[in-house]
Protein backbone atom coordinates (compact mmCIF):
# COMPACT_ATOMS: atom_id res chain seq x y z
CA UNK A 1 0.00 0.00 0.00
CA UNK A 2 1.39 3.39 -0.96
CA UNK A 3 0.33 6.44 1.04
CA UNK A 4 -0.04 9.84 -0.66
CA UNK A 5 2.51 12.47 0.32
CA UNK A 6 -0.03 14.74 1.99
CA UNK A 7 -1.11 11.87 4.28
CA UNK A 8 2.52 11.18 5.20
CA UNK A 9 3.17 14.88 5.82
CA UNK A 10 0.05 15.28 7.99
CA UNK A 11 0.92 12.16 10.03
CA UNK A 12 4.53 13.32 10.44
CA UNK A 13 3.33 16.73 11.61
CA UNK A 14 1.04 15.07 14.17
CA UNK A 15 3.78 12.63 15.25
CA UNK A 16 6.46 15.29 15.84
CA UNK A 17 4.95 16.73 19.05
CA UNK A 18 4.36 13.23 20.39
CA UNK A 19 7.96 12.18 19.66
CA UNK A 20 9.12 15.41 21.28
CA UNK A 21 7.07 14.63 24.38
CA UNK A 22 8.49 11.08 24.57
CA UNK A 23 12.03 12.43 24.06
CA UNK A 24 11.63 15.09 26.75
CA UNK A 25 10.21 12.59 29.26
CA UNK A 26 13.02 10.12 28.55
CA UNK A 27 15.84 12.67 28.67
CA UNK A 28 14.55 14.30 31.83
CA UNK A 29 14.01 11.04 33.63
CA UNK A 30 16.90 8.83 32.54
CA UNK A 31 19.31 8.16 35.40
CA UNK A 32 22.09 10.63 36.11
CA UNK A 33 25.65 9.30 35.98
CA UNK A 34 26.93 9.34 39.56
CA UNK A 35 30.41 10.68 40.33
CA UNK A 36 32.61 8.00 41.93
CA UNK A 37 33.21 8.67 45.62
CA UNK A 38 36.62 8.41 47.28
CA UNK A 39 38.10 4.88 47.04
CA UNK A 40 37.19 2.93 50.16
CA UNK A 41 36.74 -0.61 51.43
CA UNK A 42 33.93 0.37 53.80
CA UNK A 43 30.82 -1.45 52.68
CA UNK A 44 27.43 0.17 52.88
CA UNK A 45 24.18 -1.35 54.08
CA UNK A 46 22.91 -2.40 50.63
CA UNK A 47 23.32 -6.05 49.60
CA UNK A 48 25.52 -6.83 46.56
CA UNK A 49 22.54 -7.19 44.20
CA UNK A 50 21.34 -3.67 45.03
CA UNK A 51 24.90 -2.36 44.80
CA UNK A 52 25.05 -3.99 41.37
CA UNK A 53 22.00 -1.99 40.30
CA UNK A 54 23.43 1.23 41.68
CA UNK A 55 26.75 1.02 39.85
CA UNK A 56 25.28 -0.15 36.54
CA UNK A 57 23.13 2.87 35.65
CA UNK A 58 20.26 1.56 37.78
CA UNK A 59 20.02 -1.70 35.88
CA UNK A 60 20.48 -5.13 37.42
CA UNK A 61 23.05 -7.23 35.55
CA UNK A 62 23.39 -11.02 35.51
CA UNK A 63 26.39 -10.80 37.85
CA UNK A 64 23.98 -9.97 40.66
CA UNK A 65 22.98 -13.64 40.95
CA UNK A 66 26.43 -15.19 41.64
CA UNK A 67 27.21 -12.11 43.74
CA UNK A 68 24.20 -12.93 45.91
CA UNK A 69 25.35 -16.53 46.26
CA UNK A 70 28.83 -15.37 47.28
CA UNK A 71 27.25 -13.00 49.78
CA UNK A 72 25.27 -15.88 51.29
CA UNK A 73 28.55 -17.80 51.52
CA UNK A 74 30.24 -14.83 53.21
CA UNK A 75 27.38 -14.79 55.69
CA UNK A 76 27.87 -18.53 56.35
CA UNK A 77 24.49 -19.63 55.02
CA UNK A 78 26.22 -21.55 52.26
CA UNK A 79 29.68 -23.01 52.18
CA UNK A 80 31.66 -23.12 48.96
CA UNK A 81 34.26 -25.87 48.76
CA UNK A 82 36.81 -26.83 46.17
CA UNK A 83 36.71 -30.53 45.26
CA UNK A 84 39.60 -30.35 42.80
CA UNK A 85 41.33 -27.38 41.16
CA UNK A 86 38.65 -25.40 39.34
CA UNK A 87 35.74 -27.58 40.51
CA UNK A 88 33.50 -26.24 43.28
CA UNK A 89 30.51 -27.41 45.25
CA UNK A 90 28.07 -25.48 47.41
CA UNK A 91 27.07 -26.95 50.74
CA UNK A 92 23.91 -25.77 52.43
CA UNK A 93 24.54 -24.90 56.05
CA UNK A 94 22.10 -26.06 58.71
CA UNK A 95 21.13 -22.55 59.70
CA UNK A 96 17.82 -20.78 59.76
CA UNK A 97 17.82 -18.36 56.84
CA UNK A 98 15.56 -15.79 58.39
CA UNK A 99 15.91 -12.14 57.53
CA UNK A 100 16.79 -12.78 53.90
CA UNK A 101 15.51 -10.57 51.12
CA UNK A 102 13.16 -12.14 48.58
CA UNK A 103 15.90 -12.47 45.95
CA UNK A 104 18.26 -14.07 48.47
CA UNK A 105 15.46 -16.50 49.30
CA UNK A 106 15.17 -17.20 45.58
CA UNK A 107 18.85 -18.13 45.37
CA UNK A 108 18.55 -20.30 48.50
CA UNK A 109 15.52 -22.00 46.99
CA UNK A 110 17.46 -22.66 43.79
CA UNK A 111 20.24 -24.25 45.84
CA UNK A 112 17.79 -26.39 47.80
CA UNK A 113 16.03 -27.50 44.64
CA UNK A 114 19.31 -28.63 43.13
CA UNK A 115 20.96 -30.07 46.24
CA UNK A 116 21.46 -33.74 46.79
CA UNK A 117 22.61 -34.65 50.29
CA UNK A 118 22.95 -30.95 51.05
CA UNK A 119 25.51 -30.30 48.34
CA UNK A 120 25.30 -29.14 44.76
CA UNK A 121 28.15 -28.74 42.24
CA UNK A 122 28.59 -25.17 41.10
CA UNK A 123 28.11 -26.30 37.49
CA UNK A 124 24.64 -27.61 38.35
CA UNK A 125 23.46 -24.22 39.57
CA UNK A 126 21.70 -23.34 36.35
CA UNK A 127 18.24 -21.79 36.43
CA UNK A 128 16.53 -24.15 34.00
CA UNK A 129 15.94 -24.16 30.25
CA UNK A 130 16.14 -20.85 28.39
CA UNK A 131 12.51 -19.77 28.87
CA UNK A 132 12.35 -20.93 32.47
CA UNK A 133 15.68 -19.28 33.17
CA UNK A 134 14.35 -16.06 31.69
CA UNK A 135 11.36 -16.25 34.02
CA UNK A 136 13.61 -16.92 37.01
CA UNK A 137 15.83 -14.00 36.09
CA UNK A 138 12.85 -11.63 35.63
CA UNK A 139 11.60 -12.56 39.08
CA UNK A 140 15.04 -12.01 40.59
CA UNK A 141 15.44 -8.66 38.84
CA UNK A 142 12.01 -7.51 39.97
CA UNK A 143 12.79 -8.43 43.58
CA UNK A 144 16.10 -6.53 43.51
CA UNK A 145 14.44 -3.44 42.02
CA UNK A 146 11.66 -3.74 44.60
CA UNK A 147 14.22 -3.84 47.41
CA UNK A 148 16.11 -0.85 45.99
CA UNK A 149 12.86 1.10 45.68
CA UNK A 150 11.89 0.18 49.23
CA UNK A 151 15.22 1.54 50.41
CA UNK A 152 14.39 4.77 48.60
CA UNK A 153 17.28 4.42 46.15
CA UNK A 154 15.41 4.44 42.83
CA UNK A 155 12.07 5.05 41.18
CA UNK A 156 10.30 3.73 38.11
CA UNK A 157 11.40 5.92 35.22
CA UNK A 158 7.84 6.07 33.99
CA UNK A 159 4.93 6.06 36.37
CA UNK A 160 1.70 4.49 35.16
CA UNK A 161 0.01 7.87 34.73
CA UNK A 162 2.70 9.30 32.43
CA UNK A 163 2.78 6.06 30.48
CA UNK A 164 -0.97 6.19 29.98
CA UNK A 165 -0.78 9.86 28.96
CA UNK A 166 1.93 9.20 26.38
CA UNK A 167 0.10 6.13 25.07
CA UNK A 168 -3.11 8.15 24.77
CA UNK A 169 -1.23 11.01 23.12
CA UNK A 170 -0.07 8.59 20.40
CA UNK A 171 -3.72 8.34 19.47
CA UNK A 172 -3.56 11.86 17.93
CA UNK A 173 -1.24 11.01 14.99
CA UNK A 174 -2.95 7.60 14.76
CA UNK A 175 -6.32 9.31 14.38
CA UNK A 176 -4.93 11.64 11.69
CA UNK A 177 -3.61 8.62 9.80
CA UNK A 178 -6.85 6.71 10.40
CA UNK A 179 -8.97 9.51 8.97
CA UNK A 180 -6.73 9.92 5.92
CA UNK A 181 -5.80 6.29 5.18
CA UNK A 182 -8.36 4.14 6.96
CA UNK A 183 -9.11 2.95 10.50
CA UNK A 184 -6.98 -0.22 10.32
CA UNK A 185 -3.89 1.70 9.23
CA UNK A 186 -4.46 4.21 12.04
CA UNK A 187 -4.84 1.43 14.62
CA UNK A 188 -1.72 -0.29 13.30
CA UNK A 189 0.18 2.96 13.68
CA UNK A 190 -1.02 3.31 17.26
CA UNK A 191 0.12 -0.24 18.13
CA UNK A 192 3.56 0.47 16.64
CA UNK A 193 3.76 3.75 18.58
CA UNK A 194 2.78 1.93 21.77
CA UNK A 195 5.57 -0.62 21.35
CA UNK A 196 8.02 2.15 20.43
CA UNK A 197 7.13 3.90 23.68
CA UNK A 198 7.67 0.66 25.59
CA UNK A 199 11.05 0.15 23.92
CA UNK A 200 12.27 3.70 24.66
CA UNK A 201 11.21 3.51 28.26
CA UNK A 202 12.67 0.01 28.53
CA UNK A 203 16.12 1.48 27.84
CA UNK A 204 16.09 2.42 31.50
CA UNK A 205 13.38 1.24 33.83
CA UNK A 206 14.75 2.93 36.94
CA UNK A 207 16.06 6.36 37.79
CA UNK A 208 17.87 7.62 40.82
CA UNK A 209 16.61 9.33 43.94
CA UNK A 210 18.98 11.74 45.76
CA UNK A 211 19.69 8.92 48.25
CA UNK A 212 20.28 6.51 45.38
CA UNK A 213 22.72 8.88 43.72
CA UNK A 214 24.70 9.24 46.96
CA UNK A 215 24.73 5.46 47.48
CA UNK A 216 25.80 4.85 43.85
CA UNK A 217 28.64 7.32 44.28
CA UNK A 218 29.76 5.56 47.46
CA UNK A 219 29.64 2.12 45.81
CA UNK A 220 31.62 3.40 42.83
CA UNK A 221 34.27 4.38 45.36
CA UNK A 222 34.26 0.81 46.71
CA UNK A 223 34.53 -0.51 43.17
CA UNK A 224 37.49 1.77 42.45
CA UNK A 225 39.26 0.52 45.57
CA UNK A 226 38.60 -3.15 44.81
CA UNK A 227 39.73 -2.65 41.20
CA UNK A 228 43.14 -1.51 42.48
CA UNK A 229 43.96 -5.11 43.40
CA UNK A 230 44.65 -6.89 40.12
CA UNK A 231 44.55 -10.27 41.84
CA UNK A 232 40.90 -9.75 42.66
CA UNK A 233 39.74 -10.82 39.23
CA UNK A 234 41.48 -14.19 39.48
CA UNK A 235 40.03 -15.11 42.88
CA UNK A 236 38.17 -18.41 43.00
CA UNK A 237 34.76 -18.63 44.74
CA UNK A 238 36.33 -20.28 47.81
CA UNK A 239 38.30 -17.07 48.34
CA UNK A 240 35.08 -15.73 49.85
CA UNK A 241 36.41 -17.18 53.14
CA UNK A 242 39.32 -14.75 52.92
CA UNK A 243 37.72 -11.73 51.26
CA UNK A 244 34.33 -12.25 52.88
CA UNK A 245 31.65 -9.89 51.57
CA UNK A 246 34.17 -7.92 49.54
CA UNK A 247 34.35 -10.79 47.04
CA UNK A 248 30.56 -10.74 46.70
CA UNK A 249 30.60 -7.00 46.00
CA UNK A 250 33.52 -7.48 43.61
CA UNK A 251 31.39 -10.03 41.74
CA UNK A 252 28.47 -7.59 41.69
CA UNK A 253 30.71 -4.89 40.22
CA UNK A 254 32.05 -7.18 37.50
CA UNK A 255 35.53 -7.33 39.04
CA UNK A 256 35.68 -10.88 40.42
CA UNK A 257 35.42 -12.44 36.99
CA UNK A 258 36.95 -15.82 37.89
CA UNK A 259 34.58 -16.28 40.84
CA UNK A 260 31.55 -15.37 38.70
CA UNK A 261 32.72 -17.62 35.87
CA UNK A 262 32.93 -20.57 38.27
CA UNK A 263 29.29 -20.11 39.30
CA UNK A 264 27.34 -20.36 36.02
CA UNK A 265 23.88 -19.40 37.29
CA UNK A 266 22.22 -18.80 33.94
CA UNK A 267 20.26 -20.92 31.49
CA UNK A 268 21.22 -24.58 31.45
CA UNK A 269 22.97 -26.28 28.57
CA UNK A 270 21.01 -28.66 26.33
CA UNK A 271 23.96 -30.97 25.88
CA UNK A 272 25.56 -31.02 29.29
CA UNK A 273 24.00 -31.64 32.68
CA UNK A 274 24.88 -32.60 36.22
CA UNK A 275 23.06 -35.53 37.67
CA UNK A 276 22.87 -36.82 41.23
CA UNK A 277 20.83 -39.86 40.22
CA UNK A 278 22.57 -42.87 41.68
CA UNK A 279 23.74 -41.00 44.73
CA UNK A 280 26.86 -39.30 43.35
CA UNK A 281 27.01 -36.04 41.45
CA UNK A 282 28.37 -36.65 37.96
CA UNK A 283 28.68 -34.78 34.71
CA UNK A 284 26.54 -36.17 31.90
CA UNK A 285 26.58 -35.49 28.16
CA UNK A 286 23.28 -35.60 26.34
CA UNK A 287 22.64 -36.37 22.68
CA UNK A 288 19.39 -35.88 20.82
CA UNK A 289 19.54 -38.39 17.92
CA UNK A 290 17.80 -37.26 14.76
CA UNK A 291 19.07 -39.14 11.70
CA UNK A 292 21.50 -41.48 13.38
CA UNK A 293 20.88 -44.10 14.70
CA UNK A 294 18.32 -44.77 11.99
CA UNK A 295 14.77 -45.11 13.26
CA UNK A 296 15.65 -43.90 16.76
CA UNK A 297 12.51 -43.55 18.85
CA UNK A 298 10.14 -44.52 16.02
CA UNK A 299 7.63 -47.37 16.07
CA UNK A 300 9.42 -50.59 14.97
CA UNK A 301 6.71 -51.40 12.43
CA UNK A 302 7.05 -47.98 10.82
CA UNK A 303 10.83 -48.36 10.71
CA UNK A 304 10.56 -51.83 9.16
CA UNK A 305 8.16 -50.54 6.50
CA UNK A 306 10.37 -47.60 5.65
CA UNK A 307 13.39 -49.89 5.47
CA UNK A 308 11.49 -52.18 3.09
CA UNK A 309 10.97 -49.21 0.79
CA UNK A 310 14.69 -48.47 0.97
CA UNK A 311 15.63 -51.95 -0.27
CA UNK A 312 14.38 -51.36 -3.86
CA UNK A 313 16.25 -48.04 -3.78
CA UNK A 314 19.44 -49.96 -2.97
CA UNK A 315 18.68 -52.32 -5.84
CA UNK A 316 18.20 -49.41 -8.28
CA UNK A 317 21.42 -47.89 -7.00
CA UNK A 318 23.22 -51.20 -7.64
CA UNK A 319 21.92 -51.20 -11.22
CA UNK A 320 22.92 -47.64 -12.08
CA UNK A 321 26.29 -47.17 -10.38
CA UNK A 322 29.48 -48.39 -12.07
CA UNK A 323 30.79 -51.76 -10.88
CA UNK A 324 33.69 -50.04 -9.05
CA UNK A 325 31.17 -48.36 -6.76
CA UNK A 326 29.06 -51.42 -6.15
CA UNK A 327 30.13 -51.24 -2.53
CA UNK A 328 27.75 -48.28 -2.06
CA UNK A 329 24.47 -50.09 -2.72
CA UNK A 330 25.87 -53.05 -0.81
CA UNK A 331 26.50 -50.81 2.19
CA UNK A 332 23.02 -49.29 1.91
CA UNK A 333 21.48 -52.75 1.72
CA UNK A 334 23.52 -53.90 4.73
CA UNK A 335 22.47 -50.90 6.83
CA UNK A 336 18.83 -51.32 5.80
CA UNK A 337 19.07 -55.00 6.64
CA UNK A 338 20.41 -54.26 10.12
CA UNK A 339 17.64 -51.71 10.72
CA UNK A 340 14.98 -54.19 9.59
CA UNK A 341 16.36 -56.88 11.90
CA UNK A 342 16.48 -54.43 14.82
CA UNK A 343 12.96 -53.21 14.11
CA UNK A 344 11.54 -56.72 13.80
CA UNK A 345 13.31 -57.77 16.99
CA UNK A 346 11.77 -54.75 18.72
CA UNK A 347 8.24 -55.73 17.76
CA UNK A 348 8.03 -58.26 20.52
CA UNK A 349 10.47 -56.87 23.02
CA UNK A 350 10.18 -54.29 25.72
CA UNK A 351 12.25 -53.31 28.68
CA UNK A 352 11.78 -50.90 31.52
CA UNK A 353 14.22 -48.19 32.42
CA UNK A 354 14.04 -45.91 35.43
CA UNK A 355 15.91 -42.68 35.81
CA UNK A 356 15.76 -38.97 36.35
CA UNK A 357 14.71 -36.63 33.56
CA UNK A 358 17.64 -34.29 33.08
CA UNK A 359 16.31 -32.47 30.03
CA UNK A 360 13.01 -32.15 28.22
CA UNK A 361 13.52 -30.67 24.82
CA UNK A 362 11.52 -30.21 21.60
CA UNK A 363 13.29 -29.50 18.32
CA UNK A 364 12.08 -28.82 14.79
CA UNK A 365 9.19 -26.76 13.45
CA UNK A 366 5.50 -27.26 14.16
CA UNK A 367 5.08 -29.65 11.21
CA UNK A 368 7.89 -31.89 12.34
CA UNK A 369 8.42 -31.39 16.03
CA UNK A 370 10.63 -33.92 17.75
CA UNK A 371 10.15 -34.36 21.50
CA UNK A 372 13.04 -35.69 23.54
CA UNK A 373 13.26 -36.89 27.11
CA UNK A 374 16.82 -37.26 28.40
CA UNK A 375 16.66 -39.81 31.20
CA UNK A 376 19.69 -40.61 33.30
CA UNK A 377 19.57 -44.09 34.80
CA UNK A 378 22.89 -43.54 36.55
CA UNK A 379 24.89 -45.96 34.41
CA UNK A 380 26.51 -43.85 31.73
CA UNK A 381 28.30 -40.54 31.29
CA UNK A 382 26.66 -40.05 27.89
CA UNK A 383 22.96 -40.53 27.34
CA UNK A 384 20.86 -40.57 24.22
CA UNK A 385 17.58 -38.79 24.82
CA UNK A 386 14.46 -40.86 24.12
CA UNK A 387 12.32 -39.51 21.32
CA UNK A 388 8.70 -39.63 22.46
CA UNK A 389 5.26 -38.77 21.16
CA UNK A 390 3.92 -35.35 22.16
CA UNK A 391 1.13 -36.84 24.28
CA UNK A 392 3.72 -38.70 26.37
CA UNK A 393 5.95 -35.64 26.51
CA UNK A 394 3.53 -32.98 27.70
CA UNK A 395 2.76 -34.27 31.24
CA UNK A 396 6.46 -34.75 32.09
CA UNK A 397 8.46 -32.40 34.26
CA UNK A 398 12.20 -31.95 34.23
CA UNK A 399 14.04 -33.60 37.15
CA UNK A 400 11.22 -35.99 38.03
CA UNK A 401 12.06 -39.69 38.19
CA UNK A 402 10.26 -41.74 35.60
CA UNK A 403 10.03 -45.28 34.37
CA UNK A 404 9.87 -45.77 30.65
CA UNK A 405 8.66 -48.86 28.83
CA UNK A 406 10.65 -48.96 25.63
CA UNK A 407 11.94 -51.30 22.97
CA UNK A 408 15.45 -52.64 23.23
CA UNK A 409 17.01 -51.47 19.98
CA UNK A 410 15.23 -48.43 18.62
CA UNK A 411 14.18 -47.15 22.06
CA UNK A 412 10.62 -46.65 20.95
CA UNK A 413 8.88 -45.43 24.09
CA UNK A 414 5.55 -47.18 24.59
CA UNK A 415 4.77 -45.62 27.96
CA UNK A 416 6.38 -43.36 30.48
CA UNK A 417 5.23 -42.63 33.98
CA UNK A 418 6.40 -40.88 37.11
CA UNK A 419 8.05 -43.17 39.63
CA UNK A 420 7.52 -42.73 43.32
CA UNK A 421 9.72 -44.62 45.70
CA UNK A 422 11.79 -43.91 48.77
CA UNK A 423 14.94 -44.48 46.79
CA UNK A 424 14.10 -42.06 44.03
CA UNK A 425 12.38 -39.24 45.89
CA UNK A 426 15.54 -38.73 47.90
CA UNK A 427 17.45 -38.16 44.70
CA UNK A 428 15.04 -35.90 42.87
CA UNK A 429 16.04 -32.29 42.40
CA UNK A 430 13.01 -30.25 41.44
CA UNK A 431 12.96 -27.38 38.99
CA UNK A 432 13.51 -23.93 40.47
CA UNK A 433 10.62 -21.54 40.95
CA UNK A 434 10.21 -19.36 37.86
Amino acid at each position, binding site marked *: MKLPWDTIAATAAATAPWLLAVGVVYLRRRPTKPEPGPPTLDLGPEPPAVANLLVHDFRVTQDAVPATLLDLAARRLVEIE*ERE*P*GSYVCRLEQRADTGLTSYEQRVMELLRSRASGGIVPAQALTTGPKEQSKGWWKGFEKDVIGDAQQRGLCLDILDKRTFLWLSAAAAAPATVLGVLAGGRVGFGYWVVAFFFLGWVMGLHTQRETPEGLAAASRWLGVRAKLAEDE*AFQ*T*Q*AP*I*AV*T*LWERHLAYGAAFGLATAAVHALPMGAESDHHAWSSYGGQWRSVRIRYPHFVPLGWGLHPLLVALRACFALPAALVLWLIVPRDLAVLPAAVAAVVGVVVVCALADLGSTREATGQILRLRAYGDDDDKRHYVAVDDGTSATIRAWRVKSELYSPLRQYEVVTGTLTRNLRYVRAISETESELTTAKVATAPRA
Partner: protein
Amino acid sequence: MAWVIVVIAAAVLLGLLFVLLYNRLVRLRNRSENAWAQVEVQLKRRHDLIPNLVQTVKGYAGHERATLDSVTEARTSAQQAKTVEQQAAAESGLTAALGRLFAVAEAYPQLRATENFQQLQSELEETEDKIAVARQLYNDAVLAYDNARETVPTSLVAGMLRFEPKPYFEIDDSSRAVPQADFSAMPAPQDG
Protein backbone atom coordinates in the same frame (compact mmCIF):
# COMPACT_ATOMS: atom_id res chain seq x y z
CA MET B 1 63.96 -11.01 -1.57
CA ALA B 2 60.82 -13.06 -0.91
CA TRP B 3 62.61 -15.47 1.43
CA VAL B 4 64.03 -12.54 3.41
CA ILE B 5 60.48 -11.29 4.00
CA VAL B 6 59.37 -14.79 4.99
CA VAL B 7 62.26 -15.11 7.45
CA ILE B 8 61.57 -11.68 8.93
CA ALA B 9 57.84 -12.42 9.23
CA ALA B 10 58.60 -15.78 10.86
CA ALA B 11 61.05 -14.11 13.25
CA VAL B 12 58.49 -11.47 14.19
CA LEU B 13 55.83 -14.12 14.77
CA LEU B 14 58.22 -16.20 16.85
CA GLY B 15 59.16 -13.10 18.83
CA LEU B 16 55.51 -12.33 19.48
CA LEU B 17 54.83 -15.90 20.54
CA PHE B 18 57.82 -15.78 22.86
CA VAL B 19 56.55 -12.57 24.47
CA LEU B 20 53.06 -14.04 24.91
CA LEU B 21 54.36 -17.21 26.53
CA TYR B 22 56.77 -15.28 28.73
CA ASN B 23 53.96 -12.96 29.87
CA ARG B 24 51.76 -15.94 30.67
CA LEU B 25 54.46 -17.48 32.82
CA VAL B 26 55.06 -14.19 34.61
CA ARG B 27 51.34 -13.79 35.25
CA LEU B 28 51.10 -17.28 36.70
CA ARG B 29 54.20 -16.76 38.83
CA ASN B 30 52.81 -13.47 40.13
CA ARG B 31 49.52 -15.13 40.87
CA SER B 32 51.19 -17.80 42.99
CA GLU B 33 53.25 -15.14 44.78
CA ASN B 34 50.11 -13.17 45.47
CA ALA B 35 48.43 -16.33 46.75
CA TRP B 36 51.40 -16.93 49.05
CA ALA B 37 51.04 -13.38 50.37
CA GLN B 38 47.46 -14.25 51.31
CA VAL B 39 48.70 -17.33 53.16
CA GLU B 40 51.22 -15.22 55.04
CA VAL B 41 48.54 -12.73 56.08
CA GLN B 42 46.48 -15.51 57.61
CA LEU B 43 49.49 -17.16 59.24
CA LYS B 44 50.49 -13.84 60.79
CA ARG B 45 46.96 -13.49 62.12
CA ARG B 46 47.28 -16.91 63.76
CA HIS B 47 50.68 -16.06 65.22
CA ASP B 48 49.28 -12.82 66.64
CA LEU B 49 46.51 -14.64 68.46
CA ILE B 50 48.85 -17.02 70.26
CA PRO B 51 50.45 -14.73 72.93
CA ASN B 52 46.98 -13.76 74.18
CA LEU B 53 45.94 -17.39 74.23
CA VAL B 54 49.07 -18.41 76.17
CA GLN B 55 48.51 -15.59 78.67
CA THR B 56 44.90 -16.59 79.16
CA VAL B 57 45.76 -20.25 79.72
CA LYS B 58 48.64 -19.28 82.03
CA GLY B 59 46.16 -17.47 84.28
CA TYR B 60 44.35 -20.75 85.01
CA ALA B 61 46.94 -23.41 84.31
CA GLY B 62 50.27 -21.73 85.03
CA HIS B 63 51.89 -24.99 86.10
CA GLU B 64 51.45 -26.49 82.61
CA ARG B 65 54.74 -24.80 81.82
CA ALA B 66 56.04 -27.35 79.29
CA THR B 67 52.95 -27.16 77.12
CA LEU B 68 52.87 -23.37 77.20
CA ASP B 69 56.57 -23.14 76.36
CA SER B 70 56.22 -25.56 73.45
CA VAL B 71 53.51 -23.35 71.95
CA THR B 72 55.64 -20.25 72.34
CA GLU B 73 58.67 -21.98 70.82
CA ALA B 74 56.63 -23.35 67.92
CA ARG B 75 55.27 -19.87 67.26
CA THR B 76 58.77 -18.38 67.27
CA SER B 77 60.07 -20.96 64.80
CA ALA B 78 57.03 -20.41 62.57
CA GLN B 79 57.70 -16.69 62.56
CA GLN B 80 61.35 -17.25 61.69
CA ALA B 81 60.71 -19.62 58.79
CA LYS B 82 62.19 -18.34 55.55
CA THR B 83 61.02 -20.75 52.86
CA VAL B 84 57.69 -22.35 52.08
CA GLU B 85 59.00 -25.76 53.16
CA GLN B 86 60.31 -24.39 56.47
CA GLN B 87 57.03 -22.58 56.99
CA ALA B 88 55.06 -25.76 56.34
CA ALA B 89 57.17 -27.74 58.86
CA ALA B 90 56.95 -24.99 61.47
CA GLU B 91 53.20 -24.58 61.05
CA SER B 92 52.70 -28.32 61.46
CA GLY B 93 54.67 -28.09 64.72
CA LEU B 94 52.60 -25.14 65.85
CA THR B 95 49.37 -26.93 65.04
CA ALA B 96 50.49 -29.92 67.12
CA ALA B 97 51.54 -27.68 70.02
CA LEU B 98 48.22 -25.84 69.95
CA GLY B 99 46.41 -29.17 69.86
CA ARG B 100 48.19 -30.16 73.08
CA LEU B 101 47.36 -26.80 74.63
CA PHE B 102 43.65 -27.24 73.94
CA ALA B 103 43.82 -30.78 75.26
CA VAL B 104 45.27 -29.40 78.49
CA ALA B 105 42.55 -26.71 78.59
CA GLU B 106 39.94 -29.46 78.61
CA ALA B 107 40.94 -30.20 82.20
CA TYR B 108 40.15 -26.64 83.34
CA PRO B 109 36.41 -25.91 83.13
CA GLN B 110 36.90 -22.46 84.64
CA LEU B 111 39.33 -21.57 81.86
CA ARG B 112 37.03 -22.90 79.15
CA ALA B 113 34.17 -20.87 80.58
CA THR B 114 35.98 -17.55 80.30
CA GLU B 115 34.75 -15.26 77.56
CA ASN B 116 38.30 -14.40 76.57
CA PHE B 117 39.27 -18.05 76.03
CA GLN B 118 36.10 -18.77 74.08
CA GLN B 119 36.66 -15.75 71.88
CA LEU B 120 40.30 -16.66 71.22
CA GLN B 121 39.32 -20.23 70.44
CA SER B 122 36.67 -19.02 68.02
CA GLU B 123 39.06 -16.57 66.35
CA LEU B 124 41.71 -19.26 66.05
CA GLU B 125 39.19 -21.63 64.51
CA GLU B 126 38.15 -18.99 61.98
CA THR B 127 41.79 -18.26 61.19
CA GLU B 128 42.49 -21.94 60.62
CA ASP B 129 39.60 -22.06 58.15
CA LYS B 130 41.10 -19.10 56.35
CA ILE B 131 44.56 -20.64 56.33
CA ALA B 132 43.10 -23.81 54.80
CA VAL B 133 41.43 -21.81 52.00
CA ALA B 134 44.48 -19.62 51.42
CA ARG B 135 46.63 -22.74 51.25
CA GLN B 136 44.27 -24.32 48.74
CA LEU B 137 44.33 -21.18 46.59
CA TYR B 138 48.12 -21.05 46.79
CA ASN B 139 48.48 -24.70 45.84
CA ASP B 140 46.06 -24.22 42.92
CA ALA B 141 48.11 -21.26 41.73
CA VAL B 142 51.33 -23.28 42.03
CA LEU B 143 49.73 -26.15 40.13
CA ALA B 144 48.73 -23.81 37.28
CA TYR B 145 52.24 -22.31 37.25
CA ASP B 146 53.97 -25.70 37.34
CA ASN B 147 51.72 -27.05 34.60
CA ALA B 148 52.65 -24.10 32.40
CA ARG B 149 56.32 -24.43 33.30
CA GLU B 150 56.42 -28.11 32.42
CA THR B 151 54.28 -28.29 29.29
CA VAL B 152 55.17 -27.34 25.72
CA PRO B 153 55.47 -24.63 24.47
CA THR B 154 55.73 -22.61 27.70
CA SER B 155 58.31 -25.08 29.05
CA LEU B 156 60.74 -23.91 26.31
CA VAL B 157 60.49 -20.31 27.49
CA ALA B 158 60.54 -21.37 31.15
CA GLY B 159 63.72 -23.37 30.56
CA MET B 160 65.48 -20.55 28.75
CA LEU B 161 64.58 -17.88 31.30
CA ARG B 162 64.91 -20.11 34.37
CA PHE B 163 61.46 -20.01 35.81
CA GLU B 164 62.05 -21.95 39.00
CA PRO B 165 59.52 -24.49 40.31
CA LYS B 166 57.46 -23.46 43.30
CA PRO B 167 56.87 -25.72 46.28
CA TYR B 168 53.41 -26.66 47.48
CA PHE B 169 52.44 -25.61 50.96
CA GLU B 170 51.55 -28.82 52.70
CA ILE B 171 50.96 -28.85 56.41
CA ASP B 172 49.81 -31.71 58.53
CA ASP B 173 46.43 -30.55 59.75
CA SER B 174 45.00 -34.01 60.24
CA SER B 175 44.33 -33.02 63.81
CA ARG B 176 43.23 -29.42 63.74
CA ALA B 177 44.64 -27.30 66.53
CA VAL B 178 41.26 -26.00 67.58
CA PRO B 179 38.64 -28.56 68.58
CA GLN B 180 35.07 -27.86 67.49
CA ALA B 181 33.75 -25.69 70.27
CA ASP B 182 30.55 -26.62 72.04
CA PHE B 183 29.91 -24.16 74.81
CA SER B 184 26.30 -25.13 75.32
CA ALA B 185 27.03 -27.58 78.13
CA MET B 186 29.38 -25.30 79.97
CA PRO B 187 28.64 -23.48 83.18
CA ALA B 188 28.05 -19.77 82.82
CA PRO B 189 31.06 -17.67 83.81
CA GLN B 190 30.94 -16.34 87.36
CA ASP B 191 30.78 -12.60 87.74
CA GLY B 192 33.55 -11.00 89.66
